[in-house]
Every structure is written in structure tokens, then in C-alpha cells.
């Protein structure tokens, strides 16, 4: 078993060890909290040339990373909340994502930008955003959302070793403390989507922490109703395996989409586009969609709990797809997904 935070720490360590030109910069990367444990003590191990704190300067830091990448270094930058990357949007969207194409292939910016999505314990409107759709709209970026330690162990070394373009990795704070089994098979999943659980009754396309939620829900509906949900971890937001998704939906005819952001102009929208592009007949009925409520994130616990899809709702969505509205299967008692992470109270 390997926690998500430790998977990050291992791959960060491995990246620095394997690549003399790799370095990590971000606010607080050399402090005792070590970006929630994902880079702890690496500054001591590799020195302040390789792992260093920076002033508050998101736009500048990202540009500095691009400059380093242009001369052959491999920069890794961190934002303890994805929301802060909006200060670096110009460098990410106008520069990093464009450089390779705009210069006809003679420039490259291989780099990894790590964003942590906040959730629960009153993160509020400015510490809770999950901007995968925003980034994935822009060609030139590779956007991933590792949902498990395995995804990190599989992808990060490959990204640092071989990927030639800028990668935005959106990590979820609630995953950091979870343990996952990891197979050391050395297999390298490409940066795309995969089936996290097989099933024949309904397809659940999920991202990030919602994959974990969907797996819990799948277990529940299997036990209570013998329903077999197939769960696809989208994993890559910019380059998912849409055929995999379409095949699954062709098989099940039913769809639940569970994402960490807003549904409007979000991942759910692109999933629908890809399906109707292939065949509008794939779906037997309207899909169910789970995401943040269409509002900024409220701080109050009572609102936060209904702002995010609960385990209750995830289960209900699956049941409703398979058995129809008004199914009479009992829902799980734990109402809020955050109950599953009851212990999350910081550190922030």
C-alpha cells in the first residue's frame, strides 16, 4: 500500500535522481510541510539548487520554468491550490501551450505543473476550484488527473522522462492521505484513460477523487442490487481514450459522469460531445451527471455538503440509470462524501 502523497514523493525523488536537469520550485517546497508531504526533505537531499522556495510570483515562476525548459532543464512547479494557477494563466495558455507549435517544432517546453485541488473543511470559493476543462480546451497542453497512487507511479516518471510538452497535473487534496495498492509490474500505462472496474450495467466516467467515490458506489450497488457498474477513470483530460468510453457506453447503454468541477462547459460536456459525435444512439436515456453545484463554493459545512455530490447521490445516480427514477433500493446512510474523509481538517 502506498499513499498518494508518498507516491508523489517517490516519483519526485525518482525524477530528481534520474535527471540532473530536473528541479522543483514553488512556494514552500523546502519547508517542513513539503507540499502536503509530496516533496518533504528533497531540498535537503538534492540541495537548494534543485529544490527551492520562490517568492509569491506565480506568473514569473511559470515563465522562469519555461525559460529553463527551453534550455534543456526539466522544471516542476507547484501550486498548493489550483486557484493560484490563474495568476500564471498567461504563461500557461499564451506561452507554454503554444511554443512548440508556434515555432514550427523547434522549441519545446517539457515541464510539469502540479496543481492541488482543495475541498472540504471550508476551503471556500477561492481554494476549491478544479480547472481541468479550462486547461484542456487549449491545444498544446497535456492535462491529467491522477486518481490513485498507481496513476502517479505509472505516469510521473514517464512524463518526466519522455514527455516533450508541458503537462498540467491536477492532484486532489483529499486523495493525498489515502492508501492505494500499487503493482510494481513496471507496466507503463500511456497518458490516457483506463477501466478502473469492469461491469455490464452502466458506465461511470469519472475523474480524480470521483473515481474513488464511484468505486465505493459500485461496490454498494453490487452488494445491494447486483448491479455491475463499469468505471472508467478518464485520467487524461486532454487526451482521453474516447473510444474506450464509447465502447463501454455501447455495451451498457447507460451513463453517469462524475467530475470534480462544474458541469457547465466541463468534462461532462466533452464526454457528451464525444459520444454524440460517434453515435447519438449510444445512450438509451439521459445520462446522470455529478459535479459541483453551479455556484462558487460556499464555506459553510451545511452548504459544502450539498455543493459536492455525495456518496448518496453517486449511488442514486447509478441506481436511477439502471432501475429508473423511483427505484426502491435503499441508499447508503452516509450522506456526504466528505464523511468518508471525516478526518480531513487540514493541514492545508
Amino acid at each position: 500500500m502506498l499513499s498518494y502523497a508518498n507516491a508523489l514523493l517517490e516519483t519526485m525523488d525518482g525524477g530528481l535522481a534520474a535527471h540532473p536537469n530536473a528541479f522543483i520550485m514553488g512556494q514552500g517546497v523546502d519547508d517542513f510541510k513539503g507540499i502536503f508531504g509530496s516533496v518533504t526533505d528533497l531540498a535537503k537531499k538534492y540541495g537548494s539548487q534543485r529544490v527551492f522556495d520562490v517568492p509569491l510570483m506565480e506568473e514569473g515562476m511559470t515563465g522562469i520554468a519555461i525559460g529553463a525548459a527551453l534550455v534543456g532543464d526539466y522544471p516542476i512547479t507547484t501550486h498548493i491550490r489550483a486557484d493560484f494557477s490563474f495568476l500564471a494563466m498567461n504563461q500557461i495558455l499564451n506561452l507554454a501551450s503554444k511554443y512548440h507549435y508556434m515555432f514550427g517544432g523547434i522549441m519545446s517546453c517539457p515541464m510539469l505543473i502540479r496543481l492541488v485541488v482543495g475541498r472540504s473543511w471550508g476551503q471556500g470559493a477561492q481554494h476549491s476550484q478544479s480547472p481541468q476543462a479550462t486547461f484542456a480546451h487549449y491545444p498544446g497542453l497535456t492535462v491529467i488527473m491522477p486518481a490513485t497512487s498507481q496513476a502517479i507511479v505509472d505516469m510521473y516518471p514517464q512524463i518526466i522522462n519522455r514527455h516533450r510538452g508541458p503537462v498540467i497535473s491536477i492532484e486532489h487534496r483529499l486523495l493525498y492521505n489515502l492508501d492505494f495498492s500499487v503493482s510494481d509490474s513496471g507496466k507503463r500505462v500511456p497518458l490516457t484513460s483506463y477501466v478502473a472496474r469492469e461491469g455490464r450495467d452502466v458506465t461511470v466516467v469519472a475523474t480524480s477523487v470521483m473515481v474513488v467515490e464511484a468505486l465505493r458506489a459500485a461496490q454498494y450497488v453490487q452488494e445491494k442490487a447486483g448491479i455491475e457498474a463499469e468505471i472508467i477513470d478518464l485520467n487524461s483530460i486532454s487526451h482521453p481514450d474516447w473510444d474506450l468510453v464509447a465502447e463501454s457506453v455501447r455495451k451498457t447503454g447507460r451513463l453517469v459522469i462524475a467530475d470534480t468541477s462544474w458541469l457547465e462547459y466541463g468534462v461532462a460536456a466533452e464526454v457528451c460531445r464525444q459520444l454524440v459525435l460517434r453515435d447519438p444512439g449510444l445512450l438509451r436515456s439521459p445520462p446522470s451527471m455529478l459535479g459541483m453545484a453551479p455556484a462558487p463554493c460556499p464555506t459553510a459545512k451545511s452548504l459544502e455538503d450539498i455543493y459536492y455530490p455525495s456518496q448518496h447521490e453517486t449511488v442514486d445516480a447509478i441506481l436511477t440509470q439502471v432501475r429508473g427514477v423511483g427505484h426502491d433500493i435503499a441508499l447508503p446512510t452516509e450522506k456526504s462524501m466528505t464523511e468518508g474523509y471525516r478526518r480531513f481538517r487540514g493541514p492545508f
Partner: protein
Amino acid sequence: MNDRDELYRRLFRTSLLIRLVEERVIELYPSDRIQSPVHLSIGQEAVAVGVCDALRADDLVFATYRSHAFYVAKGGRLDAMFAELYGRMGGVSKGKAGSMHLSAPEVGLMGSSAVVASTIPHAVGAAHSFKRRSDSRIAIAVFGDGATEEGVYHECLNFAALMKVPVLFICEDNGLAVHSHRPVRQSYTLQKHAATFGIASRRLDEGWDMLAVREATMAAAAKVRAGEPFVLEIATSRYKEHVGTGEDFHFGYRTSDDTDAWKRRDPLIIDQQLVESLRPELECEIAEAVAFAERSPSPGRAELLTDII
């Protein structure tokens, strides 16, 4: 009691109120009734109190996530604050804001943002509007030392100087941005930096001294009201961890020496007699506010999708 004594007592009372409020927050925190990150100002109260007392009641303050002190100093209602921290309907913002986003527009606290440096331009914009409308109010941007590293600070100083905007920039210099000390983050000093834009400035090292803060702010505010931006940097000391209610000396990034030196000059620690004479009344106020919060209902589903646009 002469004027000066009375003034001191007033400032002291508000400072103590802030400290007791935050100490109450610390006590409450383990009960999980305040379910959100809290950034305490314990140690920094004199800045908020001295600054706000020097302002006109209708001057506007724009603050940060570390905003309890400015909220109280500017005159925000205590019950609405605790209810807000509790995430309840009786809160200033019905619980949607929480600790990081206190505001009290009725007394001139125009919002607090959890994104560092992000309200600095708001103060500039409000002040610029006052000037355009020949309104004699001024606006105050409150921010930490770390905030001055963000590019927007540079943009704001330039604009404020060019347009002669009546904005007062108040930097609460606690020497830290999370766990990073100022020298590893800044190659400049605020005063010389401000001077390059032709902006007058002052640094006050005695940030524990409410009267000194008040006087420095009065002088600065007078200049600002006359039509010039001003940068006032006030040294201060954060006793607690960056976020949360604990202490953090055992983590090794700083020692208690820094804060100990400060504490030896902290009126709220030194003047125990005054503390004890005021405490009962203030604790009573706080208890009422907490009781209000406890009674206040949580926002329900109807609130989830209201007030979006």
C-alpha cells in the same frame, strides 16, 4: 483620566477584544464547530486597532484572509462574525464566506480575499473612484509582507502614483509568508521601492504600540486625504502558526526567540491589570456572540444557488 489615557484604554480594549475573540476561536476549534481554515492575528492586533482608529468611520478597508483583527477593529458585529465562522445564517455572509472572507461593508470593511495581494487593486480602484467623485473618503489596502512580491503590487503602486490616488497601503510585516522568511523572498525594502514611484512611505518598527500605529496612520491618512498615495509598513509578530490555532516553533523554521522579544513589549501581556479589569465585560460580549452563533441555523438548500450573479 486624561484624553491620552482614555485613548489608550479604548485602543487597548479593542486589541484585547481581538485577542480574546481569537483565543475563543482556539478553544472552540477542537470542537469542530468552526470548520474552516483560520489565520489568526494574535500578536498583530495593535496594527489593526491603531490603523482603524486613525481612520474616518466611512473610510474603506480591503483586507486579507487574516482578517479577524481588522473586522473587529473596524467595528464589525461580533455575533455576525462568530456566526460566520460557524457557517451559519446569522453570519455576515450567511456562512458562505467563513473566516477567510470576512467583510462588514456597513462599517467599511469591503471584503477579504484568500488570494494573496488580490484586494490591493480593489483599494486603489475604490480610492480612484472617490477622487473622481470628489468624495473625501480614502481607501486602505491591507496586506502582508509577502503580498508585495506579487506583480500586481508593482502595477498598483505605479497606477496610484500616476493618478494620485488617495489610497493608503498598509503592509503588516510579520516577516513571514507561511514558513518563508522575508530575506529569502525579497531583495528590496518597501520604502525604497515605494520611493521609486514617488510614493511617500514610512516604516514603523514598533508595531506592538497601538498609539504609535495610530499616530503613524493619522499622519499617513492626512497625506492620502490630501491627494497622494502612501505606503505604511508596520512591523509585527505572528505568535501562532500560519494557518490553524497551534504554535509552530517545534517545526524548526523559526524559534520562539522572535516572538518572545515581541511578547515582552506586547501591552496585552504586560498590562495584566488592565487586561483583568476589562476581561469580564469582553468575555461576556464574546459569550453572547458565540451563543448567537450557536443558535443561528445553518444555511439550507435554498441558499445554495442564491446570489450567484
